[in-house]
């Protein structure tokens, strides 16, 4: 079997990217209640597990996971998110790709950990809020709010929170991967599409 991506692999990347983006989109609707913003990456990690685990079992070649994973952050970037989103994604999806390769693309154990890192890319959308925190605190002060009341809201967004979000998301990735493995076994292997 050749190691370079063929047309079918590339089409698979495109189709699965839509499905993945859709899951992320549905979860992101929760963001209208900003309190939930912090659990969005976690939930995306849990619900995306089945799809990405299936993807990993279908396309066993280098770069496939990386390209697949970079599409949503790049689209988000093109639609107005900051560069912090793709940069975070490169970091985490890069790690995921390396682990995926390490397991020769077929080891369930490696794929599970690969996915848990993979799903951390979603934290980029929150990290950008933290990195740019100073900026909109300033904007808010300009708007005339007392610093005290702003702090009420932005106190949540600190470095420990930010590490906590990544850890929670990573655990969400593990949960998602286990759910995914179960679903693969229960449905997709039996249906003969893996």
């Amino acid at each position: 079997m050749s190691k370079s991506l063929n047309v079918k692999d590339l089409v698979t990347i495109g189709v699965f990217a839509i499905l993945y983006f859709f899951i992320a989109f549905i979860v992101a609707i929760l963001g209208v209640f900003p309190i939930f913003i912090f659990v969005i990456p976690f939930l995306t990690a849990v619900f995306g597990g089945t799809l990405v685990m299936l993807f990993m079992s279908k396309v066993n070649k280098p770069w496939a996971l990386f390209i697949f994973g970079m599409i949503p952050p790049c689209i988000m970037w093109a639609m107005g998110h900051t560069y912090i989103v793709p940069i975070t994604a490169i970091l985490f999806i890069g790690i995921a790709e390396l682990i995926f390769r390490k397991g020769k693309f077929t080891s369930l154990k490696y794929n599970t950990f690969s996915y848990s890192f993979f799903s951390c890319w979603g934290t980029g959308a929150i990290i950008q809020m933290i990195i740019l925190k100073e900026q909109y605190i300033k904007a808010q002060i300009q708007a005339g709010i007392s610093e005290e009341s702003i702090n009420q809201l932005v106190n949540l967004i600190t470095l420990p929170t930010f590490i906590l979000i990544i850890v929670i998301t990573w655990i969400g990735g593990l949960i998602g991967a286990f759910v995914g493995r179960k679903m693969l076994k229960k449905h997709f292997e039996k249906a003969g599409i893996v």
Partner: protein
Amino acid sequence: MIEIKKLNYKYNKQTETQALVNINLEISRKEFILLCGRSGCGKSSLTKVINSLIPNYYENGVLEGEIYIDNKASKSCNLYEVSQIVSSVFQNPKTQFFNTNTTNELLFYLENRGFNRAYMREKLAETAKIFKIEHLFNKNIFDLSGGEKQLLAIAGAYASGTEIIILDEPSSNLDVEKTILLGQILAKLKMLGKTIIIAEHRFYFIKNLIDKVYYLKNGEILFELSKETFITMDDDVRKNLGLRAINLERLKHLDSDFKTKSSKQLQIQNMYHVFRNEKKVLNINNLKINFGNIVGIYGVNGIGKSTFIKIIMGLNNSKVKISINGNSLSSKKRLKKSYIVMQDVNFQLFTHSVDIEVSLGKCSKYNSLDVIKVLKMLNIYHLRDKHPMSLSGGQKQRVAIASAILSGSEIICFDEPTSGMDYDNMMRISNLIKSTINDNILIFIISHDHEFLNNTVDKILDMNKFNFEL
């Protein structure tokens, strides 16, 4: 032009079943070849051998024998090298395109081959002239009807300029009118000197174009027929071979009355639905249908057959008043009482075993014995532990029918249940539907298949009657 010697093929190293057995075939330039036979006889696989999807795309199979296309051994060629001689048109107009813009799709082959813009412009003009499809250029493919998409696919095959055009059941998703149009286009291609190979179930639109017919069974070419013998074939002989009608049957039951005059009656009042993007309405003032009948819903694509059914079922919120025996029913209540067996049955299978699948949403009046009874009646009892998605198309359809019966639905609709079906399977589903009906049930069938409708329904509703220009 095409020469196949001692070809054997199976899709999988592990399986016993040969998809193709000892195929020897020679097709010369400008011939029009029909491949026919029952579903699963290997005609579709044979088309895949000729366009070299076998072995280039289906990589897990085992292929023996020799294939020469235009004197080149195609086994040693890449898919894109064979595609420079052979163009392919497939069954499903919805899925067989790569672009979203019609002009892009039409010229996709030429772009990929590296032709320059001037040549493409020339080809585009030529194709527009021959097929009269200028009005389809630079449009969103998703706005085209199924027939138009299929027309575009064939025009694309022509624009490619390849000598051989191969078609795998191109008519299965088209209505009669569009199928006949498809025949006219194939006639043009034949006149232009193309070599055409077509695998089909329906014959009426190509019967005058055929040069040679190959009949396949269990992966083997059983015999070869000339056009004359084929079109004058005795009706009993063709039924025994599992073939569909060679001529287009005249539709019966258009003016007939409901067969069963049961006391239970569905009444549709003031149905009014405005089609989006079109200046048309579906309008029914008052229509009464007796339960216990099988009613065919007929009309060209896009006339609102599915809309009609969806409104009745409560899946569409257009204005309507629907009552059974005088009791008016809300859309929620109607949804509980009705069921549709979809054309793409993959959309309605959710669980991991047939057993659980048919019990999902089961009506409380049925117990597990009834489940077994229904599964046995539909001949899927032996599959009860399998994953529904692992079954064949026909088996999946029967699982969906079992769910319909066990959900206690009173109104059951079948959407194009016979597309791409051979005679045997068509008769099987026809008999199955007829055995399901009783005075408490009303069955609708959306179909373009004259032969099937004539064999199955008691009455046809022509949707033309309910369609009005705005």
